[in-house]
């Protein structure tokens, strides 16, 4: 009896203690509530405001939308497949339609597990709580944050209907691979609008928000399928579908859309656009302003450019004996294509793979152009000296004194000298000693001036070796500068943004396509004529061998130790520059130790790109200025020759210029012709 009484006494004490604790807890709860209330965020009204940020859209030249920055693709709930809504509710919050923001039973269970099973944390967030967390809170895990999240969820439930909450939720959840909101996810993963998602597709997507990286179906397809099966089981448990439907859905094959990283072949180009926009308007306007940006990008040319660079570099990998896994040992490449008549940049490839490296070598990498600089050297000579393509120069050892430095003794690629030849031949065969003699005569300043008139903007050193391209330039600069020759001396600044509008269509900026007469058209044509010979019969002859038949002009370039291989060339309408080389200090040498020249490394990429770009296009000749006349000369003596004479070379001459065998520099006895093997084979 006394034992029973003792127990009752203890129970009584416990009862009063419980009441006291409950009272204290209630008071603490009220205190906690008012404490949390102090900086509880205000909830926007209407809730759809969370998806109001207009996206900045970037369009290609053909009107195709190629990129969306910021913003969300929101859809009303009526345009979301009911399969997805059911799958999502079954998985995330099956009592969604019943609770008022907080699922108390689930919360108590989670609390019990968290407190009683150390190391185990059970989540119990409802859809509304998840929405509250995503909208207002950081991902910091703390009790106060959790409490505030519950309060906000409770308020959201009091202020909005379940449908409004669900609509806001499905339009902002992250599915991974850059997909936010169900509409974007449905389009990225399955290429369909959210309304058309089937049960298996919806179940797969509903499983992703738990861990978009872990269940990324592009990387872990089987894991994502397992998660899909869990979702389907949950749907059966909740009663949304029958077990048979779940089985059928689990067995149905799922075909994912190819990830758009490949479709985003214009990533380097788009980076350039975004950089320019940020510079002009600031990041805030770019990402939150809802701009409409119309660019000069030609998606088809861009795709071909990417394919040509990748194929060319893969071929180069094989020549170098480099395997795919050896990421650091693989060479890089860049391509820039510019419309000659306007300067509009049509395609940019800044590296072999944007996913590997986002550094845009086509725009920001300044590499030595080597002989690719010679068109500016010859232009300067034709303009400032009394020389023309038929003038004779002697390929001989050259020593040029340089004040305060050792004498400059440039050598040919083949280390051989070939004696006299006309300048046109010296150009097409890329003879370094003759280019050195020319710059010795004109002075490096004249060459710099010519290059700058064409549009080279990178700093150029006023040194004699400039003739052989010893100042860094970018592929975009080269493509743009060469297009000045293509247009007969009219210079167009390269540009990539045609027009920018605000969300309401007001024009913020538009491009005025203004050409500036920079070069003498006759001299520019003489250089173009020589550059045509480079492709037809010189160091760029591989272009013809690879099947590009349309009239084109260009110049190869290779630097010391084969560190850079270039080909820059143009048709009358499109100018393109290709560079290949290593990011690190290393030369391009094949398995046998032979160096890779511009003709071997870059020209094939150029040829493949131009073949694709001009497929089915008619041949367009370069316009010949009225004052230009053609004559045939002996390539060694520079004297007139019959068109049928063996080796006779056709040269373009300006009024008053005659093929008289005139010699570059002081006239004198010509040494005998020796060793006429070509450079840069």
């Amino acid at each position, binding site marked *: 009896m006394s034992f029973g009484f003792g127990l009752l006494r203890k129970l009584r004490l416990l009862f009063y203690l419980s009441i006291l604790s409950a009272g204290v807890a209630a008071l603490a709860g009220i205190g906690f509530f008012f404490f949390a209330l102090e900086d*509880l*965020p205000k909830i926007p009204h209407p809730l759809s405001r969370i998806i109001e940020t207009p996206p900045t859209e970037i369009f290609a030249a053909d009107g195709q939308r190629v990129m969306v920055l910021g913003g969300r693709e929101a859809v009303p709930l009526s345009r979301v497949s009911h399969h997805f809504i059911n799958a999502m509710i079954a998985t995330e919050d099956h009592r969604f339609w019943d609770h008022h923001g907080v699922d108390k039973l689930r919360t108590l269970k989670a609390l019990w597990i968290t407190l009683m099973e150390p190391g185990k944390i059970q989540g119990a967030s409802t859809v509304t709580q998840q929405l509250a967390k995503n909208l207002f809170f950081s991902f910091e895990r703390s009790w106060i944050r959790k409490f505030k999240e519950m309060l906000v969820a409770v308020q959201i439930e009091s*202020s909005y209907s379940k449908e409004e909450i669900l609509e806001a939720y499905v339009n902002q959840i992250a599915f991974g691979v850059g997909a936010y909101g169900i509409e974007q996810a449905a389009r990225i993963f399955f290429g369909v609008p959210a309304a058309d998602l089937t049960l298996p597709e919806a179940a797969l997507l509903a499983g992703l928000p738990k861990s978009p990286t872990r269940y990324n179906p592009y990387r872990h397809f089987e894991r994502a399928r397992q998660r899909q099966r869990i979702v389907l089981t949950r749907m059966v448990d909740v009663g949304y579908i029958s077990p048979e439907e779940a089985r059928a859905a689990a067995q149905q094959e799922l075909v994912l859309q190819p990830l758009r990283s490949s479709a985003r072949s214009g990533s380097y180009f788009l980076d350039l656009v975004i950089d320019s926009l940020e510079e002009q308007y600031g990041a805030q306007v770019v990402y*939150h302003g809802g701009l409409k940006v119309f660019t000069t990008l030609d998606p088809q040319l861009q795709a071909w450019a990417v394919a040509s660079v990748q194929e060319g570099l893969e071929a180069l990998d094989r020549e170098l004996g480099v395997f795919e896994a050896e990421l650091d040992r693989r060479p890089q490449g860049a391509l820039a294509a510019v419309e000659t008549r306007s300067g509009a940049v049509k395609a940019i490839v800044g590296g072999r793979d944007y996913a590997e490296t986002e550094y845009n070598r086509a725009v920001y990498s300044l590499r030595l152009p080597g002989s690719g600089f010679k068109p500016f050297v010859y232009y300067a000579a034709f303009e400032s000296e009394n020389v023309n393509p038929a003038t004779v120069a002697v390929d001989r050892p050259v020593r040029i004194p340089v004040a305060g430095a050792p004498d400059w003794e440039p050598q040919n690629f083949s280390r051989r000298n070939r004696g006299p030849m006309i300048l046109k031949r010296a150009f097409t065969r890329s003879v370094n000693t003759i280019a050195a003699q020319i710059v010795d005569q004109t002075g490096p300043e004249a060459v710099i001036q010519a290059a700058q008139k064409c549009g080279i903007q990178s700093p150029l050193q006023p040194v004699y070796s400039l003739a052989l391209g010893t100042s860094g330039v970018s592929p975009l600069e080269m493509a743009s500068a060469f297009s000045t020759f293509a247009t007969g001396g009219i210079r167009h600044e390269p540009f990539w943004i045609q027009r920018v509008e605000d969300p309401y269509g007001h024009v913020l900026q*538009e491009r005025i396509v203004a050409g500036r007469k920079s070069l003498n058209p006759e001299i520019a044509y003489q250089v173009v004529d020589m550059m045509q010979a480079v492709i037809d019969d010189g160091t760029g002859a591989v272009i013809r061998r690879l099947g590009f038949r349309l009239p084109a002009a260009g110049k190869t370039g290779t630097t010391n130790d084969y560190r850079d291989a270039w080909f820059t060339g143009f048709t009358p309408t499109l100018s393109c520059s290709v560079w290949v080389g290593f990011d690190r200090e290393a030369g391009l040498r094949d398995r046998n130790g032979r160096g890779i020249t511009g003709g071997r490394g870059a020209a094939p990429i150029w040829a493949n790109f131009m073949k694709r770009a001009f497929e089915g296009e008619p041949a367009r000749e370069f316009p010949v200025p009225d004052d230009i006349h053609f004559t045939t000369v002996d390539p060694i003596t520079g004297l007139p020759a019959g068109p049928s004479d063996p080796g006779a070379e056709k040269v373009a001459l300006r009024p008053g210029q005659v093929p008289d065998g005139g010699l570059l520099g002081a006239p004198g006895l010509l040494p005998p012709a020796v060793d006429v093997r070509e450079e840069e084979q």
Partner: protein
Amino acid sequence: MDWSEPQDFKDWLSRLFSLRTILVALVIYSLALAELRFDWVEQLLGAYLARTNSQRPQSGAIWEKGKETLTARKTLEQIVTDRESSQRLAREAETLSQISEALASTQGVMVSAAHFRDLYLELPAAVAMDIASPFELLRLQSSGRWERTYFRKFGRSIKIFLLDMENRVLKELELPPELLDRLQQQEDFSEGVLEDFPRLENRIYRADRFFEALANQPEEIRRSILPAPERLLALSRPITRVGVSDEALTGFVDIGLEFESEGKSMVMVLQARDWAVWRLRLDLEAREILPSVEAEIPAGGTP
């Protein structure tokens, strides 16, 4: 209420099953059940929070994003307002000088080809010729490609780009600072008398003599001196005196026309071709035009 400890089991039972205890238990049970079934605590809290919503801070990720959107919109609105204001001024401009005034240093303005032609036609022939040959404009107009005209400041000059539909430049014109000055002076009405302009005070003629001499000149000379005489006709009061500058600047000589307007003396300065002015002066001097009329004609007065 009896707070003392029950003394026996019977006491325990009677207290446990008392009406009060049962009522309290029922109330607690009902409250708990109602909360589980109807979420009344959440409803109360939610209603309170919703009522106090407007007093709480706009903090958190979504508000930050909203603020950025708002700032971005404001920035854009400013850009658009500036641009549209310049555009509106340009569209409403009746003279090239007004367009020049509407131009900001950082952005240009666009007008239609037709508007530019109207502005061009308003210019005195001499100035118009210096800007562009009418034959060249005629050629561009008849090509059917000239759609728009873009004005942009470059340093102290203004460049005018005649554009096709794709914004390609068909013709680029330049208004150097001297030409801009001439444009502005073209409509330079100032309060005062000719003597207030040092460059005009040496040669002041009575208006009737000046216009008499002008009328005797061939049409080419007359137009080179006063390219738009109809504009002078539009003045409400007659011109009283004319001052001619001794200095020529880039082929032009300033001519000042003094007239009365609302009881005040006003001077309008125009530019005339220098060669035409020399010819006119020969005629004026041959007609024994007073070397100085100041004594004869009071300043601002009518002879």
